[in-house]
């Protein structure tokens, strides 16, 4: 019994020292943000709209709109951002939409959503790799906007 207890203690210490993955010790995370528009119109008349990647399009099918397009403003191209801990990064998605993302540790981000320069929402969310945070709302003519923040691997 004594040997068994000693063996278990050794295994525990070994697990603490050799630590191949430690999510709580990550100092930065990589994210990508997109502005998406949901509509029932198949071919909208706007040059700044492009189809979504298939995986994202499939995920958005839970909502009622038939089609989803990424809003692409050449002045504000979408990009991946590496956000270090306790540092806020601003991502401008369009002339009217901006988010500020801050990594506060333990896989948690704090997102501030600004619409026309006004603060609309502050959201803290623990986000695992491959998951998305979606901030959304209705737009005119029964359409909807989606700000999709994905954590990249």
């Amino acid at each position, binding site marked *: 019994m004594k040997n068994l207890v000693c063996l278990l203690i050794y295994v525990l210490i070994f697990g603490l020292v050799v630590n191949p993955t430690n999510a709580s010790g990550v100092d930065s995370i990589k994210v990508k943000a997109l502005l998406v528009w949901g509509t029932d119109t198949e071919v909208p008349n706007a040059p700044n709209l492009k189809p979504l990647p298939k995986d994202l399009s499939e995920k958005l099918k839970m909502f009622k709109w038939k089609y989803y397009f990424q809003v692409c403003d050449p002045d504000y191209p979408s990009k991946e951002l590496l956000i270090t801990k306790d540092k806020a990064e601003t991502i401008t998605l369009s002339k009217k939409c901006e988010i500020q993302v801050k990594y506060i540790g333990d896989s948690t981000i704090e997102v501030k959503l600004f619409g026309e320069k006004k603060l*609309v929402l502050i*959201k803290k969310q623990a986000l695992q790799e491959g998951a998305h945070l979606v901030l959304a709302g209705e737009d005119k003519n029964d359409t909807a906007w989606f700000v999709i923040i994905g954590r990249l691997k």
Partner: protein
Amino acid sequence: MKKTMNFKDQLKIQAWIDNELDEKESLAVKAMVESNSDAKKFAESLRKFNSLLTKNEPEYKFPISQSELWANIKKEINHPQPRVLQFYYSSLHWLESKLIPVAIAASLVIIGGAYLALKFTHNKSTVHLASEESAALNLGINVLSFYAPKQEMYVVWVDTNAY
């Protein structure tokens, strides 16, 4: 307009809209919604939110009603099965004679095993899923949020037409 509805009221309204209340409670909530403008707007907002999703949301139903569940629990507390008691007392006697070494060994095995399992499995199991949010309420915004596990999406729906 000053809000008179509290968080408990909001939960009741949600349950009412999802048809989870019994007849008595349902009538009470209905009366509250009809007499309170904030409650009415909240209920409308929830109904509108429900309409935003397609019919793909899985429905989970408990096999028996709440009242039946609590009646069964009360019955077990007041009149436990004899064989349960017998097993309980014999286990207790065994544990008393071997309590200290068994408890230590079992605790170490469980803690060590759980710790190693968490460390070497996918990151998903180590992520803390709690979230906090606040909305700029001075803009009259209502916020509804949920997690869609199949899509791995945390959704926050901003309803600017609630108030």
